[in-house]
């Protein structure tokens, strides 16, 4: 799935997408841009998932990577320090807070982590997911890359519903392909749903 929106000012993009997707979650407007982006991508992706809303999901893991940490809100918090340092901005100055928002929304209580990587393609992300799978009983994974800077805003998430107790060889290969080659367009991929959201201003 690719979500594109044309002729929208960059600053309005996330709020416009929220309205388009007809989500009702007023807390969305309090979030920083990184959390909004991650939240929206997860929202579309998990709509079709087998997760029961409002039931705790201890066997779901959220493992994301990101390059610029929370730089967008860091810059805004730094600017707010001149007048009135804003506690509501400061709360968002950690990259794992986007995972916190997704966990609250979907009641996910399992393993969760953010890796900071130079680029989207990261072997570390797949290595870590596969290492976690050997030790922890996990049924579903929400994995991917979410990054928000002045120049680049991108979320690329995959939802994996495991077929067996451990990730199969094929699933592991798919995870490598997804995290290293950014192979999100593969139509034949049956093990996961992919959602891809990218800002396009024309």
């Amino acid at each position, binding site marked *: 799935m690719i979500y594109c929106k044309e002729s929208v000012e960059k600053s309005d993009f996330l709020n416009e997408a929220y309205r388009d997707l007809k989500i009702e979650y007023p807390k969305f407007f309090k979030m920083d841009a990184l959390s909004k982006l991650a939240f929206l991508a997860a929202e579309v992706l998990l709509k079709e998932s087998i997760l029961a809303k409002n039931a*705790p999901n201890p066997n779901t893991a959220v493992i994301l990577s990101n390059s610029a940490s929370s730089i967008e809100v860091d810059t805004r918090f730094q600017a707010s320090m001149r007048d009135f340092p804003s506690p509501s901005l400061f709360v968002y100055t950690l990259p794992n807070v986007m*995972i916190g928002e997704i966990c609250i929304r979907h009641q996910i209580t399992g393993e969760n982590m953010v890796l900071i990587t130079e680029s989207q393609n990261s072997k*570390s992300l797949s290595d870590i997911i596969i290492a976690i799978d*050997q030790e922890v009983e996990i049924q579903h994974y929400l994995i991917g890359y979410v990054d928000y800077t002045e120049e680049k805003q991108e979320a690329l998430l995959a939802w994996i519903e495991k077929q067996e107790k451990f990730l199969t060889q094929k699933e592991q290969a798919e995870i490598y392909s997804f995290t290293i080659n950014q192979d999100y367009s593969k139509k034949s991929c049956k093990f996961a749903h992919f959602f891809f959201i990218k800002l396009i201003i024309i």
Partner: protein
Amino acid sequence: MTYLISDNIVSPLGFSTEENFSAIMRQQSAIKMYNDELNNHIPYCAALMNQDQINEKWNSLSDETAYTRFEKMAILSIQEALNNSNIDPASPDTLFILSTTKGNIELIDPDFPHHFSPDRVYLWKSAQLIGQFFENPHPPIVISSACISGVTALITAKRLLDCDAYKNVIVCGADLISRFVMTGFQSLKGLSDQPCRPYDKEHCGLNLGEGAATIILSNRQVTVTNSIKLIRGSISNDAHHLSAPSRTGEGLYQSIIRTLQHFDIEQLAFINTHGTATVYNDNMEAIAITRAQLQEVPVSSLKGYLGHTLGAAGVIETVLTAHSLVHNKLPGTYGFNTIGTPDPINVVKENSNITQPAALKTASGFGGCNATLLLSK
């Protein structure tokens, strides 16, 4: 099996684990009172590094000036841990993991004079330079999960070692207290203007601290005596609130239960908790510990000695927990006098001797995250 084969702590109490452990066993706290521009001249208590001391140590290690004070602190800690081991940091069998919340964030402050390029604020960039200093061939893994970063990094290292991806993992946790961080915690009204008092009835906020620590983990045992193993770890999320912990301690409780599964809790000598001395945190931990039926197990917090060192805390406190097990000595909880949590857990006030072989380390942080790990002889 994962072994802790070498470690180091760089803190205001000293540049080696031994200096830190013995200062703490002498009940020496690094927390001091300040009144300066770091907190806009509002008086505060913190455990801050002496910059001249860092530079002096740095100059005896390298004549390079191209490193920030955050990177210098991390490199000094890693170097010292390496000196006490025979691990080759340049080997492809060795991986670096850096744990930090804000790294070089002070570089975005327009009032902070520096000559570094703007990309230095990116944590991956800073980690790459640290890895390159030791000529390691892999891109380092950077974990930034608020205050559980350090414990998360150690758990991740163990899991990667378990699947034979590497033979050794060097985990370094480091954080500085910049105006950014100080002002942020001040804005949340989370700071105490007095030395912090974990779990005490007078607990009223945390003190921030600076530091770095390193643990080298290996899937091979190097010494037969005194070797500490990382048995298991687990990470959870409260799915409740971003900045306030769960009222039922759910996430921490879940993480404790998962980490202690199949483990005889009679073997637990103590729990080294997060114990920040904020009312929210301390009460939540007491609830989770009681729910896990560990209310009789001695609980110790190290925040009264070193403050809350954020992304470094999990690594610093795991080093000290391991050394407690090695020496059979548990430091008392500095600042604690009378239990102030509604659930009365067994917080230790004075130094004591321990006999059991294992300890649980816990951490909780913003974003609702919790992590625990189990160490044993």
